[in-house]
């Protein structure tokens, strides 16, 4: 394996694709490489290639979660989502750009079962152990998206600038299909460079997890109020971050036997988040 450290985004993009993968904080990618879930001939280290830092509503993709959780310019929902994500060491290493691309924690996928998300025919979680899995968008794959910050960015209506286009966080994700099992619309050599995060009138992130610190979300609920409008983004409930307009949308959830409890948790957290605004 080879490691490159391009001096800017243009060189980084040129080095990506054809067996090359982008490496930022490495908190997800390094274990995935070691476990053989992801393969790469070349790692393209992004330390010098993507912007890092916060300037008003603009956040460089190389900014760490630790930097976001303490910056008063950052809306509360994103600060709180970062502060409750992972562990201090992981937050100091992991970047917001990488966080948006993190893979599911589904143990069938992580243990390299030949599951649908890996290109197989069946979702093993649906018939097997799935307490931590999805209640929405789970027809083909019941994995749950683990990112707290992504749910916050979804509720905040954040936009993503890549090396070739701008799109909203809502447009960044899409449910995997038979044709493409990826959960983002980005090309293999496309690089997230920057986020633009609108300032809401109020926002909050609430998270239910198995312990008080350092756990992935069973359900995470971000809420952001812009004038009279309130938007919600949910983590841990679907293969991608999931937007809902109100708790009524939970009536359309499709929980598995082992995830029905998540509907109740989501309903409670949405009500609490709404009253906190």
């Amino acid at each position: 394996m080879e490691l490159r450290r391009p001096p800017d985004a243009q060189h980084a993009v040129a080095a990506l694709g054809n067996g090359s993968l982008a490496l930022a904080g490495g908190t997800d990618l390094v274990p995935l490489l070691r476990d053989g879930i992801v393969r790469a001939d070349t790692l393209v280290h992004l330390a010098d290639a993507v912007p890092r830092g916060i300037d008003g509503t603009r956040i460089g993709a190389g900014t760490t979660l630790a930097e976001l959780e303490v910056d008063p310019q950052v809306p509360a929902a994103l600060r709180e989502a970062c502060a409750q994500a992972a562990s201090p060491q992981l937050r100091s290493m992991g970047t917001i750009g990488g966080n948006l691309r993190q893979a599911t924690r589904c143990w069938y996928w992580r243990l390299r079962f030949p599951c649908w998300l890996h290109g197989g025919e069946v979702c093993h979680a649906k018939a097997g152990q799935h307490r931590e899995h999805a209640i929405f968008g789970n027809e083909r794959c019941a994995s749950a998206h683990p990112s707290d910050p992504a749910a916050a960015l979804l509720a905040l209506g954040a936009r993503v600038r890549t090396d070739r286009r701008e799109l909203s966080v809502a447009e960044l994700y899409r449910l995997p299909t038979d044709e493409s099992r990826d959960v983002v619309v980005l090309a293999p050599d496309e690089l997230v460079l920057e986020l633009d995060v609108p300032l809401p009138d109020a926002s909050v992130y609430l998270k239910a997890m198995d312990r008080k610190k350092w756990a992935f979300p069973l359900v995470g609920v971000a809420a952001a109020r812009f004038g009279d409008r309130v938007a919600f983004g949910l983590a841990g409930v679907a293969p991608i971050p999931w937007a809902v307009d109100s708790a009524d949308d939970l009536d359309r959830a499709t929980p598995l036997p082992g995830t029905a409890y998540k509907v109740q948790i989501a309903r409670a957290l949405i009500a609490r988040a709404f009253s906190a605004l």
Partner: protein
Amino acid sequence: MLELTINGGVHTLDLPVDRPLAYVLREDLGLTGTKIACGEGHCGACTVLLDGIPTLSCITLAHTVGEREVTTIEGLREHPLVDAFVRTDALQCGFCTPGQIVSASALVAANPSPTRDEVRHAMAGNLCRCGAYPKIEEAILTWRD
């Protein structure tokens, strides 16, 4: 060849790209104070400082360290936290202790008088399967005594 600055000394090494820093420290340089437990960035036993920031060396590729200075538990042998952990009996098996002290050293460097909540927030990434958490908290809260 790769140059790493560790505890003030410079080491020149020929390493494969996929070699994590923790294995370099322990197996190539004999700095066995840094422990590897989960090996996948969950438990914090392998915590070292990179330019003063607690970092998981088991999932940090050595080639990505760059010019950042590495501080391991061996570089903190004179730190008052070491005595504080002994004085308060803040360990049982001791395997997680190097990582605990490394994380705590960064906390007290930034915030010499942390509250209990601040200790819990900063130390959440260092797991102790013996459950010595109350005494680890006490060690950090009283580190200058």
